[in-house]
């Protein structure tokens, strides 16, 4: 019996020839990740284990990105605790404010995560790296602590769902965000609970690396354990200048077993908008109706990459942000920020009337830099629209791709980019 890419990576890291869904296995991990919210809890648990050092100074990665640059005194204390720990243990992959980025944009960019890896991160969007053909999943702080100490983690081998996106050509202004929102709208926020979501098909093969990151990023919003895309020439092109250590390419066997196979035709998929208060509440842009907005957020670990900024700029060019709207743009990393400057995108955003921030998770989780008041509405390229996620419990978040978020910022209501062309 063949294996899926997920099963192969897990088997290899458990020292096994073969694994089956449902089996409990102990895996070696290549990277253990934490941030300024989750790492402080993990560090407290790590100290209880009583080992002097982390298992590998290069494989424990700590990023201050959630409430940083420190938004208040308590956040500063948490960031300091993490910084002190990184110094004490001589961690080579600690990235300070000014050199950092949103963790899930930064790690692939810096070549820290590579195809074939097993990665755990105390952040639910750690599933992003599956776009490179790695097994990558979110865990809590205690699992992170155990991983930091032992270099190992236990998993139940998940069943896999295969999503086949047929058709070569995406509709105009459709991106990876729309494909994943469409799938979540179809199967629901627990449609892939505990399962691996494997994205395949011609439309995935022709999707950019940035679009693939966006898709794998939101596997968790369907309850998935991981999202994964088999590596190909697009992956190789992305990692060739970034990889500084060996990596391994895995693909699913033709006779691999799937719990389900779900097929979509991308010709049916137009830009999607997820209405409050769950990512599964999706509608195509043509059925949105009139929804006025107060804010538009472009960025995050879901859509803060250079391609996302280019798309937003293309829509905003020659337009001004609506007088009643705050547009806030968050490049995912310093590298992305610099690239956007070189291409003139930052100037374009500012000229259009938008604010551009240093990289931070910021408003995505209601931290800072764009919090909503009671009754306010935001269109956002982030990943969650739960009650209170971006501020007041009576505010509303609508999720979309960067093109829709940019067009909405211009018109003051949720709109597709075709309306401003």
């Amino acid at each position, binding site marked *: 019996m063949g294996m899926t890419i997920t099963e192969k990576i897990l088997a290899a890291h458990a020292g096994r020839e073969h694994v089956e869904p449902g089996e409990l296995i102990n895996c070696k991990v290549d990277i253990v990740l934490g941030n300024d919210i989750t790492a402080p809890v993990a560090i407290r648990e790590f100290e209880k284990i009583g*080992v002097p050092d982390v298992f590998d100074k290069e494989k424990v990665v700590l990023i201050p990105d959630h409430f940083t640059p420190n938004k*208040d005194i308590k956040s500063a204390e948490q960031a300091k605790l993490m910084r002190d720990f990184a110094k004490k243990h001589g961690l080579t992959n600690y990235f300070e404010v000014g050199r950092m980025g949103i963790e899930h944009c930064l790690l692939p960019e810096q070549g820290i995560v590579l195809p074939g890896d097993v990665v755990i991160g105390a*952040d639910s969007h750690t599933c992003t790296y599956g776009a490179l053909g790695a097994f990558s999943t979110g865990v809590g702080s*205690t699992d992170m602590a*155990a991983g930091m100490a032992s270099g190992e983690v236990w998993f139940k081998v998940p069943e896999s769902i295969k999503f086949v996106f047929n058709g070569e050509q995406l509709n105009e202004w459709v991106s990876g965000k729309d494909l994943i929102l469409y799938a979540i709208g179809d199967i629901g926020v627990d449609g892939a609970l505990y399962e691996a979501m494997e994205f395949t098909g011609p439309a995935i093969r022709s999707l950019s690396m940035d679009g693939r990151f966006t898709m794998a990023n939101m596997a*968790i919003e369907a309850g998935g354990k991981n999202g994964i895309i088999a590596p190909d020439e697009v992956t190789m092109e992305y990692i060739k200048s970034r990889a500084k250590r060996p990596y391994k390419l895995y693909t699913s066997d033709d006779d691999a077993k799937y719990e389900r196979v779900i097929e979509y035709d991308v010709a049916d998929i137009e830009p999607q908008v997820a209405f409050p208060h769950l990512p599964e509440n999706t509608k195509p842009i043509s059925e949105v109706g009139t929804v006025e907005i107060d804010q538009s957020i472009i960025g995050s670990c879901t859509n803060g990459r250079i391609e996302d900024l280019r798309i937003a700029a293309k829509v905003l060019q020659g337009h001004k942000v609506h007088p009643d709207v705050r547009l806030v743009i968050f490049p995912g990393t310093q590298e992305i920020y610099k690239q956007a400057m070189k291409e003139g995108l930052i100037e374009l955003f500012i000229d259009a009337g938008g604010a551009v921030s240093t990289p931070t998770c910021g408003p995505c989780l209601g931290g800072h830099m764009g919090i909503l008041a009671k009754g306010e509405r935001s269109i956002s390229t982030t990943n969650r629209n739960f009650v*209170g*996620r971006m501020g007041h*419990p009576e505010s509303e978040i609508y999720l979309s791709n960067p093109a829709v978020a940019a067009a909405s910022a211009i018109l003051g209501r949720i709109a597709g980019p075709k309306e401003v062309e």
Partner: protein
Amino acid sequence: MEFQGRTWKFGADVDTDAIIPARYLNTSDPGELAKHCMEDADPEFPNKVRPGDIIIAGKNFGCGSSREHAPICLKAAGVSCVIAKSFARIFYRNSFNIGLPILESPQAVDGIDEGDEVKVDVNNGVIYNLTKGTSFKSTAIPPFMQELIDAGGLINFVRRRLKG
């Protein structure tokens, strides 16, 4: 392990932002987090909950973020146990890792109304609705999870392995 308490009932897909909004995550102090427990699902919950109370919820409880602060704040608020139709996977792992008992039982969730007095026999996976005089079986806890519980949580488990 046995618990008995009043029940509070919630719907499906209670996410971790509802359990503990991120705006309070600039601390990891359990007592501070408990003051805002379930606040965005029921603003009065932190004032109403009493030690030993049990949460009953629909499918996919704890979906969303990986924040361990979610089970930590429930435990610190005195919630003895959560019974749901299903749990999101990171929340499920986290609860075992920090020692918050959770049980999966769609029948129990349908058979318990808010305010019912419920007794839970965690080891045998039996849930008694004392108000209505009914009982329900929960999905068995996987043997490895039982091993974690017996070891006193993941940290003790790992400590033993690394020193063994």
